[in-house]
């Protein structure tokens, strides 16, 4: 009898261990992952390529001079400035997108902040003449909302979900008109006590 109990206990332990190994480990953080941003950038790039702004342009259109701004962080995650620049730049830095922009007579200018950084590093840039002033601005924003709850039904939150919304807006600087807006939504869920 004692042997049966012992064997049953061992079997139960083994089953528990195997079940633990097989189960997917829950996410522990709702911070944005690089893969999230890559996915968002790909989506944004496609939306820009399909935009009416680009579709209606051709090689005979007047030159559009586009300047970028880094992504404005309105989320609860901390996004380093380098990543804020990278996120904005990656949308238009793809060779396919570059070729498309060139074919539509859209010139991408270095953002003034980057020029200032490069100048501090010893590089020199001539002052822009009026005909080189930007005509369009591409700016982006990342915002988030948070929801938390209790999986166990207790008083302490042990599950959290963050919804992220990445928005790109292309504006005509003279007319203040929004020419295109693209959005990408992401969500990340994590389990476990936050305060711990």
């Amino acid at each position: 009898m004692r042997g049966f109990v012992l064997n049953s206990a061992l079997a139960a332990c083994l089953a528990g261990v195997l079940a633990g190994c097989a189960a997917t480990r829950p996410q522990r953080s709702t911070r944005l992952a690089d893969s999230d941003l890559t996915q968002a950038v790909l989506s944004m790039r496609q939306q820009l390529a399909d935009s009416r702004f680009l579709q209606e342009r051709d090689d005979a259109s007047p030159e559009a001079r586009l300047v970028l701004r880094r992504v404005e962080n309105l989320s609860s995650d901390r996004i380093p400035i380098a990543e804020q620049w990278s996120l904005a730049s990656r949308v238009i830095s793809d060779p396919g997108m570059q070729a498309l922009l060139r074919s539509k007579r859209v010139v991408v200018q270095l953002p003034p902040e980057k020029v200032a950084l490069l100048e501090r590093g010893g590089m020199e840039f001539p002052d822009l003449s009026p005909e080189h002033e930007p005509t369009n601005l591409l700016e982006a924003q990342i915002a988030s909302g948070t929801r938390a709850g209790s999986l166990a039904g207790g008083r302490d939150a042990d599950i959290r979900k963050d919804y992220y919304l990445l928005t790109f807006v292309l504006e005509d600087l003279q007319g203040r008109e929004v020419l295109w807006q693209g959005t990408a939504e992401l969500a990340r869920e994590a389990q476990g006590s936050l305060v711990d």
Partner: protein
Amino acid sequence: MLALVGTGLMLGACSSHYQADARVLGLVSRAEFGRAREVLYTQTPPTGKLTDLLDATKKGMLALADGLPDAAESDFEVVFDTLRTQGLNADRTTESIFVNEQGTRIWKGEPFEQAMAYMAIAEADASRGDWGNARASAENALFHLRDYSATSGDDIRYTSVESTFALGYLIHGVAALEMQRREEAEESLAKAAASRPELGPLTRTLLDGAYDTILVIDYGLGPRREAVGDGGVGVAYFPRTQSDDAEARVEAGGRGWGYPLACDVNAMSRDERWQSLESIRRFKQGLGQAMMLGGAVLASTGGTRGDDDVARLAAGVGLLALGAIAQANSQADTRHNELLPQRVYVAAFDLDGWQGPVRVAIDGHPGGRMTLHGLASRARRARVPVCAPARRERVVGGCTGDLVRQRCLRAARDADAALGAWRPGCPLSHAPGCAGL
């Protein structure tokens, strides 16, 4: 069995209390942050692991106090990432009952230490003019707290309540203002004033935009965490720098301003709403006692009537030994961030073109004074020395990053609002005439 008991004694002997580094504390008290950093980095080289949260927090805070927010970035990224990791110790609760807690649990700090760490990150970001990330970090510091006021006797009851962290709301409000999110700023600053009514005039100054410089002033050393009670299973905080209601004085160009406390870390450390481990401590103590009792009952009913009784006796003694291990090793975890300030002030004032020195002093604390230079052109944060000689003004040329709002930011907002004001060679974030800032 003897081996088991021996293991218990050995583990008990291994439990040691956290020792704050007196040398580093002394250097910080004298505002010698560079040397304090040198000592800290020599002792604990960075590894970039989650388990290094306490080290990373201290290094980041020292770099910020030393006026090097960029140098704090790598440490603060580890801190932010670790604090945002949920269930960090979820798999370590049982283990920590049998092995001393300090040796097994990843230090995440009490909620007030976590909030202060988030604020240090927010201030580093703000020092660099990165208001988006400053806002994000401040928002993370405003997590819900546990209100234990419904607890009666041993029946621990609590409800989740909104944070009353005035410092967090202040910095969140400032960041929101800088990002032209006026409604959000009004909401945050109203909560700051509701938490600490004496901050009302400061919040009005901020909302009126009657300032061009923001200075976050740290003073004193944060409280010491010690094991207390029978067997050292409880914890309590004891002040290193005593609390008081002294104002911070700022003088520049013959003008002066006074500012009330925005945060008293001693008070936070004594407030149950800012604690999280007490319930675990009680649970562990209770479990240890229960095991001891159960083991004693089993062993006393065991005897010499056969194999089953011998087995029961062995089980009883084994349980007794486990209880002893739990008791011996449930000594409180006394790790804490000894480099926290005792108090924090937020000052907002208008330098109005003044390029000379800005003097900061804490009322009634002769050693608590500091002179800042180049404030109009550099972002700074001041950690005022505790024990500088009273008759010698401490002049710290390149220390620390206050939050300095450049005078041209307001004009920059106007420029942003009408991008037609764009001028060649002038960054978009700066108004015409502000190029080069």
